[in-house]
């Protein structure tokens, strides 16, 4: 009987993790670093949203463990080779974000900036699966997924083997790299259950956890009902696919609604977007002041600082976390105005409009092309208006990319009494011809007394 440790999680209740996993993967400086990496950028908006990548990783492990339990019950194809797959899936769930950069997605691009090929080669050279290189060349992982896979194969290789996992498969699960080999259909199903496009255990955890941590009134997701409906079986063409049983239809609907709610109203909130602008421009400015060619950022967001201490001028980079970034910024508060603004949250600028609905109201009867022209010309125009009126400050104009999803044709399949039915046949895709382009101008507070006049001037730019 395997001994387990129980973790109390406010979202899922008790999460039971084998002690061997705790010793091998959790009690480790790289994994513990995740306690100091914020889960999302919405902390600025919701005071209690202090959850981190550590609790999210445990949550994804729990959902992955639960999903596999039900998959085994529902899928005869999993019985013969399930131990290796189960261990690999669980370890991949645990390690899927192990190298997430400080402030999560805000800075992850710096992991691969100017060294994308070098980083990809580093991963490929660590994988013994001969088809990996070709398969990887047609997958689209995020920078943090590539780096997390590298850390998994470099730092946890022996531990993965000791715990009965397949290191090559785990790298594929973390990066979403599917097998082209048709005999690996079951493995591909598991890859998509961790790193898919519509519904996977990663998304499921962050939707539920971010909703809980923010306290927003989002739809409720019955994850037990959803996961208990999972099965893997061959489709009519003999290809293994993930199916949901019909009793989960309402939960699938809620997952899509819940995710889109968060993207529309929380992650893309005008304050969240402005804070992102401040921290990104402050750190870029700091890098420019301290190094040539952004070497500061290149070193700070390198894989090797996860393993050992690196000196960069007066700085020490080691297991970088959110707190380190804030510390670096605080030390340079007098050099970069955005840092003061960021630390005080006494923002110099306010959003001219706060939501997509308001934007549609103010730019009514202007088509997409006209709106785009206004976006492209608004910075210079706003600068001019402020100068003419003697108002101090600099405007900021941000495009807001709201990552909404709809279920695509043949993306999710439902098992109705043994029949294979595409989700979009049951719930046809809505005729959606609306462009989702949207931007927010931020102007100094003082300029708000002429808000209507500014909007009139912007409308003329179409």
């Amino acid at each position: 009987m395997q001994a387990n440790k129980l973790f109390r999680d406010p979202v899922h209740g008790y999460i039971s993790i084998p002690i061997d996993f705790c010793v091998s993967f959790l009690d480790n400086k790289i994994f513990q670093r995740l306690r100091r990496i914020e889960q999302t950028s919405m902390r600025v908006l919701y005071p209690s949203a202090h959850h981190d990548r550590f609790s999210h990783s445990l949550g994804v492990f729990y959902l992955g463990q639960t999903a596999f339990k039900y998959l085994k019950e529902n899928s005869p194809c999993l019985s013969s080779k399930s131990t290796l797959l189960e261990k690999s899936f669980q370890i991949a769930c645990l390690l899927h974000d192990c190298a997430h950069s400080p402030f999560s997605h805000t800075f992850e691009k710096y992991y691969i900036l100017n060294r994308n090929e070098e980083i990809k080669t580093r991963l490929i050279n660590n994988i013994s699966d001969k088809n990996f290189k070709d398969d990887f060349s047609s997958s689209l992982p995020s920078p943090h997924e590539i780096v997390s896979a590298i850390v998994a194969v470099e730092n946890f290789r022996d531990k993965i083997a000791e715990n009965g996992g397949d290191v090559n498969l785990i790298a594929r699960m973390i990066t979403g790299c599917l097998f082209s080999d048709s005999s690996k259909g079951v493995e591909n199903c598991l890859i998509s259950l961790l790193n898919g496009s519509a519904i996977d255990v990663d998304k499921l955890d962050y939707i539920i956890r971010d909703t809980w941590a923010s306290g927003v009134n989002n739809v409720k997701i019955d994850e037990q009902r959803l996961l208990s409906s999972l099965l893997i079986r061959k489709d009519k063409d003999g290809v293994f696919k993930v199916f949901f049983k019909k009793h989960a239809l309402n939960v699938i609907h809620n997952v899509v609604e819940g995710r889109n709610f968060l993207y529309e109203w929380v992650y893309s909130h005008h304050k969240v977007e402005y804070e992102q602008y401040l921290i990104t421009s402050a750190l870029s400015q700091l890098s420019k002041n301290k190094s040539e060619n952004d070497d500061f950022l290149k070193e700070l967001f390198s894989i090797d600082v996860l393993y050992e201490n690196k000196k960069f001028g007066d700085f020490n980079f080691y297991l970088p976390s959110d707190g380190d970034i804030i510390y670096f910024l605080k030390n340079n508060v007098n050099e970069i105005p955005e840092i003061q603004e960021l630390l005080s949250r006494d923002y110099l600028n306010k959003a001219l409009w706060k939501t997509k609905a308001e934007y549609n109201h103010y730019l009514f009867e202007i088509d997409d092309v006209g709106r785009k022209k206004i976006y492209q010309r608004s910075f210079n125009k706003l600068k001019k208006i402020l100068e003419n009126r003697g108002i101090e400050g600099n405007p900021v104009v941000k495009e807001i990319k709201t990552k909404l999803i709809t279920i695509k044709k043949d993306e999710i399949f439902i098992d109705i009494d043994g029949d294979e039915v595409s989700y979009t046949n049951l719930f046809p895709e809505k005729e959606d011809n609306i462009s989702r382009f949207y931007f927010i101008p931020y102007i100094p507070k003082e300029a708000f007394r002429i808000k209507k006049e500014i909007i009139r001037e912007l409308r003329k730019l179409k």
Partner: protein
Amino acid sequence: MCYEIDSEIVLANFLRSKENCSFVDLINLKRSIESSIYNVYVDVTKNSVFTSVENHPKMFSWANEKIIKSKNSETYFEPHFIDDYFNNDIEDKIKEKVLSIINK
């Protein structure tokens, strides 16, 4: 200074003269652009590509894991539209080089 280029810009320009765009096409374009211009990050992650297609339903659709032009989208792929709508978002310093690589 990091210049970020979104996948929608790559897709729009590439599909101007092609029938479809695969993930491999996007990855190759990313590689070519990034290796030619320092400090450029081309976002062709899954998240970005899916968002680009979702956000421009009049222009882009999915067909067999590839991105194709949507039905009746001809006007959106005319050069002046692509230039005005997408290419004006590219920093002037790098615009010419980026476009010459995509349109090669």
